[in-house]
């Protein structure tokens, strides 16, 4: 499977994606605008509450090509963050009290400066989260020691595992991904990750394998814990249930499978004001591989840059001005406010 970009799919153009989301199709235009729904609950314009997390996407290069990937990442993507831009991130961090740096990709570990960057952030006394796709740990010998590197730097590991069976996992993430993920999870457990008392956190992410909302997080976490231990003796800390947002490859899937209209209607009908109060863009800033700033990773993938003109790049990072911004919203935001809500840390309510 190729990325949308490599396969010359028109949805690789973010303008086309936004056109679909704001489509002239009668059914979709009949849906309320996300901004209107926020207005109804007195949250518009949406403003930040704080900036406690810097989520840095250090590259779109990945060893996997997942069907639902909102980044359109894959082995054919070459965009990765340079050491210079990483330096700019470190300078920005040093001037703020941001407590957490959330590293994502692609497979962030494939950036040649990944380990250096993690060490530098750790030296600044900030917590590092790595969104590790698991299979990278067993993809090549040079990555086999990642669990120990993570441990040395007290990194929190967050990894996608759509289900505790191979059929569903491989359907979403590619053939053989489940088997490799299980191997990697065992290596992480062997290094102490997910084991009570070690303080080494291993959290899993569940995304629905299709056009439906995720189940309640607590019940699903209990299922995953029981089944992963029973079948493979694997332990982990928490499970985050995350809704698939209708952008990029998941948007392509929705359109090709004929599920787009019904999915959007479902997201809108499931709008939860309490989730809207707690959306992750109110407490984070997202940085792209080339240093531009966004309200979240999804806005980044739609190239909806941050509203504040004077602090749009990490080289001009100004926490005060960013706190005063208006968050850019569009129809995809319904994905974060549906049902129990959704964020990079799971449910919002």
């Amino acid at each position, binding site marked *: 499977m190729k990325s949308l970009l490599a396969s010359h799919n028109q949805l690789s153009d973010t303008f086309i994606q936004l056109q679909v989301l704001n489509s002239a199709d009668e059914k979709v235009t009949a849906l309320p605008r996300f901004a209107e729904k926020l207005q109804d609950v007195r949250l518009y314009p949406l403003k930040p509450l704080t900036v406690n997390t810097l989520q840095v996407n250090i590259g779109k290069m990945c060893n996997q090509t997942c069907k639902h990937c909102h980044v359109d990442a894959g082995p054919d993507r070459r965009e990765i963050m340079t050491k210079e831009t990483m330096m700019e991130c470190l300078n920005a961090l040093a001037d703020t009290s941001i407590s957490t740096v959330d590293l994502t990709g692609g497979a962030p570990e494939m950036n040649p400066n990944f380990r250096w960057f993690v060490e530098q952030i750790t030296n600044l006394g900030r917590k590092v989260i790595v969104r590790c796709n698991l299979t990278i740990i067993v993809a090549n010998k040079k990555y086999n020691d990642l669990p120990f590197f993570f441990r040395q730097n007290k990194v929190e590991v967050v990894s996608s595992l759509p289900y505790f069976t191979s059929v569903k996992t491989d359907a979403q993430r590619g053939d053989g991904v489940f088997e490799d993920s299980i191997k990697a999870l065992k290596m992480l457990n062997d290094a102490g990750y997910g084991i009570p008392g070690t303080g080494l956190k291993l959290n899993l992410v569940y995304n*629905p394998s299709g056009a*439906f909302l995720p189940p309640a997080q607590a019940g699903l976490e209990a299922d995953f814990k029981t089944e992963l231990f029973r079948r493979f003796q694997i332990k982990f800390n928490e499970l985050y249930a995350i809704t698939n947002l209708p952008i990029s490859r998941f948007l392509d899937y929705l359109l090709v499978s004929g599920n787009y209209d019904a999915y959007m209607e479902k997201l809108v009908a499931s709008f939860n004001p309490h989730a809207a109060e707690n959306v992750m863009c109110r407490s984070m800033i997202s940085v792209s591989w080339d240093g531009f700033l966004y309200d979240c990773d999804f806005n980044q993938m739609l190239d909806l840059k941050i509203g504040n003109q004077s602090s749009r790049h990490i080289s001009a990072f100004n926490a005060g001005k960013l706190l005063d911004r208006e968050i850019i919203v569009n129809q995809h935001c319904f994905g974060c406010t549906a049902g129990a809500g959704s964020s990079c840390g799971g449910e919002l309510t």
Partner: protein
Amino acid sequence: MKTYYDPEDLKKFATISEYQPNLAKKFFDYYGEVFEEGALTAREKSLIALAVAHTVQCPYCIDAYATDCLEKGSNEEQMMEAIHVAAAIRGGSSLVHGVQMMNKVKQLSM
């Protein structure tokens, strides 16, 4: 192609209140409460609803509860097992009447 069943009609379920609002309200309030977490979990109730939907052969209910079961965290194996339970009861209910047939045959026969 025009058929008796239109998937879009499922979304119009609430419009049955147009002709009998009081009865509809009572039904929907009852319906909502039935599916809340109780002595049975919402997931278990959704699986029961899926099985019953196949027994009453309601395409609206099958669509609705196939989706709901996934969103309640059931997997495909569990959902198909629930339908087999419905099928077993349905088949069994035919076969057990075979005893009545045998009773009648024996009554009529020398």
